[in-house]
């Protein structure tokens, strides 16, 4: 009994990623630094689940975040659209060594396949990729004079995403282009784990502006405000990776 029976908040990132099993398919949100669930990825490294299939737009940058997860040897396969970047040396090394499988998916098909999983669509015909290597071996069909490739949903056991704020029902709002994969991954995973800057009281999010309704969310953890924000307002003073530029600190 009582007035707070739905409470998806968990006390810390360790609780947020608890129970992710070896062999799980894990979607990780974010595009660049925007929306990247940095603290949850670090917690997954500490948690230690292995043999993972990871779905992300890229395959890690530098030596932190997803790259660190790869370097820790926890990932068996990447499903992504753009693994090769100037600073993707961790992925590059593992891939060349044959220690990492890769499924390369055009970015819009990746997004739509994730969306299909959440929306209960069994498969769909997309024009993207028709006639290319990435459609080799796939079923095609001409519909109304246009050529399409049949693509299937990508589902996950767990999604790790970042958002700006949540309430205890798990309703989420994002910030600017940090929204990217969050809403569709939240819907495509059996268990959705979200890190947010802050947890706000139920009723304080405008119901017109809730982007991910709480039914898609299982666990929410507050990790504190990002360095470029103060009380939800942009204050700047960082580089594109979010590193503080001046001596003021975060």
């Amino acid at each position, binding site marked *: 009994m009582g007035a707070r029976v739905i409470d998806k908040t968990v006390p810390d990132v360790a609780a947020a990623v608890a129970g992710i099993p070896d062999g799980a398919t894990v979607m990780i949100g974010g*595009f*660049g*630094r*925007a*929306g990247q669930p940095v603290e949850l990825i670090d917690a997954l490294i500490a948690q230690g689940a292995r043999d993972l299939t990871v779905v992300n*737009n890229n395959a890690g940058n530098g030596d932190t975040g997803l790259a660190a997860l790869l370097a820790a040897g926890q990932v068996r396969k990447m499903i992504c*659209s*753009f*693994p*090769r*970047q100037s600073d993707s040396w961790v*992925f*590059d090394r593992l*891939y*060349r060594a044959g220690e990492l499988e*890769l499924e*390369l*998916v*055009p*970015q*819009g*098909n990746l*997004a*739509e396949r*994730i*969306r299909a999983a959440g929306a209960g669509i069994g498969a769909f015909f*997309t*024009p*993207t*990729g*028709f*006639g*290319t*290597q*990435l459609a080799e071996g796939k079923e095609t069909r001409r519909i109304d004079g246009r*050529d399409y490739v049949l693509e299937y949903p990508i589902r996950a056991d767990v999604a790790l995403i970042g958002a700006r704020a949540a309430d205890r029902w798990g309703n989420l709002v*994002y*910030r*600017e*282009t*940090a*929204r*990217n*994969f*969050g*809403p*569709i991954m939240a819907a495509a995973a059996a268990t959705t784990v979200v890190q947010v800057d802050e947890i706000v009281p139920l009723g304080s999010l405008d119901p017109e502006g809730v*982007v991910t309704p709480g039914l898609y969310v299982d666990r929410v953890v507050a990790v504190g405000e*990002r360095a*470029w924000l103060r009380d939800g307002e*942009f204050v*700047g*003073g*960082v*580089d*594109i*990776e*979010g590193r503080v*530029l001046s001596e003021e600190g975060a």
Partner: protein
Amino acid sequence: MTTRISRAQLAARVASDIPEGAVVNLGIGAPTLVADYLPEGLEIVLHTENGMLGMGPAPERGRIDPDLINAGKQPVTALAGAAFFHHADSFAMMRGGHLDVCVLGAFQVSAGGDLANWSTGEPGAIPAVGGAMDLAIGAKDVYVMTDLLTKGGEPKLVEACTYPLTGVGCVSRVYTDHGVFDVTPDGFRVRELFGDNTHAEIESLLGLKLEA
């Protein structure tokens, strides 16, 4: 010697063809230069496929916002009238044909409008496609912006692409350093040649018949 315009001149030439009110995606890399040459005072709405319409120019240092980036993961700003959306909605805009113009780079464009711009097909290379295939089919007009020849002197306008394709029959126009070419049912048609370049010279450089 044929006349070649600079990369900046080429970006300006592309920009001059973009009509007011157009919704435009400039991909990543060289085509993003076009933004710097869009006519002043005209409202043109820039789409970035990571999830925004109404993208504005880069911010000053100190005002970089890691949550506000373009498809190349560079810092940008949001204009009045901007809107944010998620990745599936963003690529639905492209796939659904709601963008007016998309500008892309190329390794090769074929006379049939096929585009190759994502992979050189070298064995052992790590592949990466990103949004290239979605962009290729994702606008009413797909413009390619490229040199006419590779650094090694090989034509980039070809009868049939030898590099792996990005999209089939998707390119509507090619802006090169030598001239501008439309893709027509009969193959490439010369739209404009820069300087005193002649039809015959360009045909000879390409080893390809061009419509007048």
